[in-house]
């Protein structure tokens, strides 16, 4: 068996800070791996949604990927809490969910009611594309 050769990557100096909130640790880990693998992002993951405000204040992300369906506090409440605080209210949020109708989920990334959505399953390119799109419009 040959040795596995791994390509290393380190974050750029102007890498964007991304907070990923999802109750599923394996999912957040995979998102972190893929995003940081590009070298363009520094990713912090959070699996306890009720700590979202606290962690956001600490980490000061450029953008938040927020799961909609979570056991402790769902994505809607988390977003409300963030937007009620002056420190966090301007950080853009992309909602990520598996519970969307199929027409929309086919598109992967879409807007609805002024919010941005990503439909699971997502791949790396869709993730990056969505983040870049939202960041470019919010600045």
């Amino acid at each position: 068996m040959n040795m596995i050769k791994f390509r290393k990557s380190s974050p750029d100096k102007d890498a964007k800070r991304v907070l990923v909130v999802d109750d599923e640790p394996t999912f957040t880990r995979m998102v972190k791996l893929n995003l940081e693998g590009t070298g363009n992002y520094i990713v912090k993951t959070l699996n306890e949604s009720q700590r979202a405000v606290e962690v956001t204040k600490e980490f000061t992300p450029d953008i938040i990927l927020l799961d909609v369906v979570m056991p402790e506090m769902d994505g809607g409440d988390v977003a409300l809490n963030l937007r009620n605080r002056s420190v966090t209210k301007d950080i853009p949020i992309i909602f990520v969910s598996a519970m969307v109708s199929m027409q929309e989920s086919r598109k992967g990334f879409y807007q609805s009611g002024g919010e941005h959505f990503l439909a699971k399953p997502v791949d790396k390119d869709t993730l990056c594309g969505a983040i870049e799109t939202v960041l470019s419009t919010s600045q």
Partner: protein
Amino acid sequence: MLRSHLDTLQGGQYSLIHIETLDKLRSFDLESICHAILLDMRFGRDYSLETIRYVGELQVGVALIALCRDHEQLTRYKEEIHMLDDYILAERLVEGELSTRITHAIRRRLKEQELLHEKMLLQSLLDNIPDAIFFKDRESRFTKVNRAMDEIYGQYHKTIIGKTDFDLFADEHARAAFNDEQEIIRSGESLVGKLEKETFEDGHINWVNTTKVPLRDDQGRIIGTMGISRNITELKRAEDTLAQERTLLKTIIDHALAGIFVKDLHGRYLVINKRHIEYLGAPSDADIVGKSIYDFFGNEEADRISAADAKIMETEHGIENMVDYRHRADGSELWLLTSKVPLRDDSGRCIGLVGISLDVSEQKRNERTLKTTIQMLEETKLQLIEAEKLKTVGRLAAGVAHEVKNPLNVVSLGAEYLENHIEEPEEMLEIIRDMREAVKKANDVIFELLDYSSPHKMRMEPANINDLISRVLGLMRHNFNEAGIKVEEALNGDIEPVCLDAPKMEQVFINLFLNAISVMKKGGTLTVRTDLIRMKSTGSNVSSAMTELFRIGDKIVLVEVLDTGTGLSQSDEQKAFDPFYSTKATGEGTGLGLSVTRSIVEMHHSMITLKNRLDTQGACISLLLPAATNRNEYD
């Protein structure tokens, strides 16, 4: 002197018997002992008178001849002289005269006897016959009537002699009778057996059968009329009652809601009412009496009916409520409920049959509709159960999808990361790529499942299906080119618009074309045809599904999608539209495509069938969509 005359008789033509007294004369049966009696009036008046009266009143065939002395003596018997057949004046008698006179007297006596007899017969006829006999003069006055007539009409009048019919009857009859009689007098011709209605002044009515003949005198001149009338009032009443019953029966038969008929032993109609004539397919006023079933039906049908009739007449057992089916001339159905019984004459012999037929087509139709409805309900029930199951599956699918999507996404993102960061060995990268591909397929399955179970909301608008097909073919041009498939469009420009939900119908064609591509991996030809057809009949060549969806005369847009693939196996044909049935290799398809397609087609009140092509190898999918112009009738 007399003695000498008598002697000349003796020994000649006559023999003489001498009777001295009247008593002795009375003791004899005169006709058996003599032909003539010579009465010598010279014995004395009393004796002579008594003898004349005795013999005269006997009225037998024995001539009575008086022998007088002279004229003077004879005149003393003025009152009785008509009873004598002859008299002889003795003093004037010449030789041979006596014999001649006796002979003539006997002859006269016999003649008179005959006349008397005839008169007696005639009188007894007139007196005893119950028919009214009358004689009238030229002015139609009664001159003589018999006893019967006198009794019948005499109760209203003291005597009818000298009266006319105008005195006896109401004017209506009297005038007619008078005219008849005047005509007889004028023409000399008899009037025989005329039915006359005699209305009496008190209003009661007699019906008589009258014969009148001219009455002539001995010169042959018509001096009046005579006639005989028989009272047939009772007979007439019986006849009228019969006629009334016949009319009643005929009215019932003619207006019955059933067909009624009577046939003789040879199957010829003796009686048939209008309704049954209609059942035979003939105009209701046609003359059917004497015709048979062979005049209305083909031999095969007529033989069948005729054999059934023959059996009834042979066994003398009727049939009850036999259901019989016929085609009317206009093609509509005729169901008859027929009963037949043998017809017997007075002696009990079978002489034909009587039948009655009821039109039960309406009931039959209702029965059939009910059956179809029950069947449809059964099918609907099954469909509802099926739909309910799918709904459950759908709800489960949505939940399952959510639960499955997350782990799948973890796998796909993990694999993607590895693929991007592992440089070697290449085998490792291949494994990772396979994993990603497998996860992608799993995702596709989930989407398809969600598609299948999600509620469909339809927005139906009339559209030209040709345009829709061309649009889909354009979208998929790349897919066809890639698979090396040639596309032939045979779209009929004259088809009519169809009410459809465009995105859904597009999905139908996408599914059908994707299927076609999957069965023609090594290339081939895809043909799409459209045409406008009409629902012609509901015969055996038309499926029940089609009969349920379309009515005769409906315009239908037909779309055929033909491929040159491997065709279908028998199980394909039966199950192709079932959910999860697939001929694709595991992993290549979910088997939901055609099932979804059929659901959509059915929502369009249309039908889809799949069968093998007849002209070449491959399958043919037919879509039958109702033209939008039919729609009003359905809604």
